[in-house]
């Protein structure tokens, strides 16, 4: 029932070429559902191609809420997100998200082999015309000390760090222009943290420095290593460091 019903419920969305753009988020406001209380409000952020931004600040200030809002994963009540000067709304949202990928703090997968999980995005309309590249995936995995047999592993048996690696490889193989990373290494040991960071580095090299990042992390050392610009989110808004 897929294709025909999909056109019924979603219309025929055009797959635009909207790569390489910058992100502009203006006056972003999100209210707690069914309440007048603003979780975040009036936040602005511009990310140019290649820029790496870290969001830091006290717990509860709304870093994750803001990150999810500009990744357009949650409805916002105020403001607008633009990608390559185009308003992200309706059927442009999946196109935008194929260029600017959000990674959850903890990756959740259905029961399947790692390879099946990595293949899955290529079934999506937005990635049609691209093909799963097994050799490239193996190379990425080998870069973080996982061999070819890792592909056969079941998602049920993955550790937290391995899940994070799978999620990151799944995103990177799609050549995104921007990654939203929400505490990507929060519960990982030092070796896995290094593996995750090296994957990010690898992706940036492949993108020839045009890969952008928006990173939420309470690991200040990490934000210094990874980001070029650090912004502090407090109850009064988003401020440049110092």
């Amino acid at each position: 029932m897929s294709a025909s019903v999909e056109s019924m419920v979603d219309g025929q969305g055009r797959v635009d070429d909207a790569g390489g753009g910058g992100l502009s988020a203006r006056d972003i406001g999100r209210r707690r559902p069914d309440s007048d209380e603003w979780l975040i409000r009036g936040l602005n952020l511009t990310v140019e191609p290649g820029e790496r931004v870290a969001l830091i600040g006290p717990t509860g200030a709304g870093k994750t809420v803001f990150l999810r809002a500009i990744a357009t994963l949650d409805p916002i009540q105020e403001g607008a997100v633009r990608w390559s000067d185009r308003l992200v709304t309706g059927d442009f949202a999946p196109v935008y998200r194929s260029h600017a990928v959000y990674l959850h703090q903890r990756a959740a997968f259905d029961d399947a082999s790692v390879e099946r999980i990595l293949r899955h995005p290529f079934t999506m309309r937005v990635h049609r015309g691209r093909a799963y590249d097994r050799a490239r995936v193996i190379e990425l995995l080998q870069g973080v000390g996982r061999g070819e047999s890792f592909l056969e592993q079941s998602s049920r048996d993955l550790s937290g760090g391995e899940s994070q690696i799978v999620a990151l490889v799944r995103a990177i193989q799609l050549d995104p222009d921007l990654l939203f990373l929400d505490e990507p290494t929060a519960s990982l040991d030092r070796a896995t943290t290094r593996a995750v960071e090296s994957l990010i580095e690898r992706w940036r090299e492949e993108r020839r420095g045009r890969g952008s990042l928006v990173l939420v992390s309470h690991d200040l050392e990490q934000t210094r290593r990874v980001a070029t610009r650090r912004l502090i989110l407090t109850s009064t808004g988003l401020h440049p460091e110092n």
Partner: protein
Amino acid sequence: MDHAYTRLTTGQLSIASGLVLVSAGASMALSLGIERGLLVAAVRMVVQLMAVGLILDWVFALDHPAAVALVLVAMTLIAGVSAGWRAGASYRGMIANGLIGVTLGSWGASAIALLVVVRVHPWYTPQFAIPLVGMILGNTMNGVSLGLDRLTSELVARRGQVESTLALGATRWEAALPIIRSSVRTGLIQTINTMAAAGIVTLPGMMTGQMLAGATPLDAVKYQMVIMFLMTFAIVAGSIVAAILAFRRLFTADHQLDLSRLVERKAGG
């Protein structure tokens, strides 16, 4: 009909009801503690069935399309609302979605049953319309209810998977499809089991009733088959409709999963 139909007298009914008292006695003797519930349920059943019997007797005697239609609409409303009502996670509009699913599925199947398969003239002949529609409604209600229940609970349980799929560029439909499939499948599994077991493990109720009323077993079996096929169709149609409506409620036009639209409904509230 080969054999005469045997009417039951009040005396015969009393003998049967006496067995409920015996059961209640056994409950007391063994301290099962369920004699009260047993008697209350038995009395409820008597009152409810008598009321339905009286109403239907009246409708059968009237033999008027408006009266039959009224009964069918009332049954549909009850079945539809029950299908969309559930304790636990629910959303605004869930009852309406259940009602629409049940109505479309069961009325579609019923129209085929009355007009095309059995070819009842006139269509509202209560002897056919009420039991056929009633049986289809009851089963569609179960299927749609199970399907909606599965859809909402899976969206909560697999929220992470759905969201990470959306985050990679999936449309809301692509992200929801595995859960919609699982929802429709759940609604249908019971019917598949019933069909597979029919005649071996159980003698289906409708067929049993027709034999009691004097129909030959082969005639009764044919009716049973027709009703099972139509029920299957009604459940598939009803649960697909309900699942798509639920999907449209819980995902936004911007391809977001909005679980804040789910609220906890208290049991009995």
